[in-house]
């Protein structure tokens, strides 16, 4: 067997590994109760129905959890872009002492296991009154999303020639005007991708959200605690709702993710 066929087989296997569960979850989330419990299950959805989905939304707490998730992810998006983009701009445009060390340091923040940080964080958050609030969770999620936001935006700004800004300066702009009139319009698609990526990181994060909340659960945290004592249809519908936004967003911004990985590998 040639190496090419081995690679191909491995790729197919890997793809199936990822796709099959997603496919099963998706089809069963849109089937009626009977087919969710049926065994063996058919490959294709048997009876299309919104019964499972509507049951899921009917469960007490789901609506609130989705709302919390949206708030937390929205705040994370906002913080990550507002803090990450200036840092990325500085890394791209200015030569300052320790720039390279700073770049690595940013990545190192991801090397700290959240499990170690969680307990001190919970204690501190209780002291500060941030415990069990969407803002508290959003702060932790911002810490998780920020390294990527900084590195992606820095590569984004590096891709915009410095001369464009300089030309704007010679034509009468101050630094801020040049940024707003020239750099921002060109960076906007990439900034949007960064924002969406921060949103997805927050939307999918479960560990910190579980530890730092009791009543104000985000959707993943709510599902994690609710899943074990829930009926099967609820699990499928919940799983579906966890996966879908991430899949859609990552599909939309995949081009920018490649540049992110290119930078993160350096």
């Amino acid at each position: 067997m040639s190496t090419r066929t081995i690679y191909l087989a491995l790729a197919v296997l890997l793809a199936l590994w990822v796709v099959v569960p997603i496919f099963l979850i998706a089809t069963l989330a849109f089937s009626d109760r009977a087919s969710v419990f049926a065994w063996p299950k058919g490959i294709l959805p048997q009876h299309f129905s919104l019964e499972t989905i509507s049951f899921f939304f009917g469960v007490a707490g789901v609506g609130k959890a989705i709302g919390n998730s949206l708030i937390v992810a929205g705040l994370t998006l906002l913080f990550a872009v507002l803090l990450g983009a200036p840092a990325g701009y500085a890394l791209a445009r200015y030569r300052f002492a320790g720039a390279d060390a700073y770049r690595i340091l940013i990545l190192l923040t991801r090397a700290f296991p959240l499990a170690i940080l969680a307990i001190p964080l919970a204690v501190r958050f209780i002291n500060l009154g941030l415990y069990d609030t969407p803002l508290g969770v959003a702060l932790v999620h911002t810490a998780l999303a920020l390294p990527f936001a900084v590195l992606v935006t820095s590569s984004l700004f590096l891709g915009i020639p410095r001369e464009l800004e300089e030309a704007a300066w010679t034509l009468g702009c101050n630094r801020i005007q040049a940024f707003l009139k020239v750099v921002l319009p060109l960076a906007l698609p990439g900034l949007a991708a960064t924002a969406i990526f921060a949103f997805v990181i927050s939307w999918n994060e479960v560990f910190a959200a579980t530890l730092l909340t009791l009543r104000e659960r985000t959707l993943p945290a709510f599902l994690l605690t609710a899943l074990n004592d829930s009926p099967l249809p609820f699990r499928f519908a919940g799983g579906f709702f966890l996966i879908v936004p991430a899949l859609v967003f990552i599909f939309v911004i995949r081009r920018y993710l490649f540049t992110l990985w290119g930078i993160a590998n350096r």
Partner: protein
Amino acid sequence: MAGIRVENIVKLFGRVKALNGVSLEVRDQEFVVLLGPSGCGKTTLLRIIAGLEHAESGRVFIGDRDVTALPPRSRKIAMVFQNYAVFPHLTVFENIAFGLRMQKALPERLRAQVERAATLMHIENLLERYPAQLSGGQRQRVAVARALAVEPEVLLMDEPLSNLDALLRLEMRAELKRLLAESRTTTLYVTHDQVEAMSLADRIAVMNAGRVVQYDEPMKVYQEPADTFVGGFIGSPPMNFLRLPVEGSQARIQSLTLELPSSPPGKDVLLGVRPEDLEAHLEPQPQSFPARVLVVEPLGSHLLLTLAYEQQQLKVTVPPDFAAKSGQTLWLRPQPGRLRWLDPASGQSLTHARQA
């Protein structure tokens, strides 16, 4: 309209001295070219005048204003960049109008100025396009039009033609010359292309290793280089330098003796002579010296000969019908009045005092 004056500019990049106390004056409406090899500091000097770099010491004046501490936007300059720096998200019209919009120009004036600049650069039919839909030459035109539209006191150009292909460069060169002669804008133009410098400039400032080594009219720079660097950098092929022994106030090439303008400090002297200023003859001539032909290169308009005089090589251009073969001995007669004498130790011209 205004002149430019820079005084004692020193610029360091880390420990490297990019500019070593440069002073330069550009008169109102003058076209000055900064010419030098890459790394000589010419672009840095231009960027300091634009306000994009800050000098460690020294002052920059535009007109009578001391602009040393001013940001680029307050200097009343316009700049054309090597990579054009045309804004990709704006149409050609908006690119040209950018500076005028920043000045909050009235709509009628803005439209008139943009159309005038676009017509000057022959891009009036491209105003609605985006830069991505333009060729390199067209983008170049947009960049120049954008700079002219704001009617700057001083126009700064950083190798504006170096990204164009050879034919287009020739065309744009002539067009730029016409345009700037018409608009009479004081212009400082950076290039490493000596032909471009010769063809465009009112005066050329030749730079080397962070200094201005000669600042004069193109023909003067060509015929009377201040030192061996200028003679070797300008002209293709470069100036020949022959090391000759000194006898009293004369230099000797075999039987030929040449009068020196002043007595040189050492026992030897360098004769600088352009390849076209040596007249080649097949037979011995008075006032000439022999040299052996090494290589004959037919270049269409003329033949380029490489010859050896004793151990020294020199280049001579002769008419295309000149019968020269390698191995042959020719008699070379230097054109009086076209000779340059230099000190072999310092490389400085004997008559030309070095500028500070």
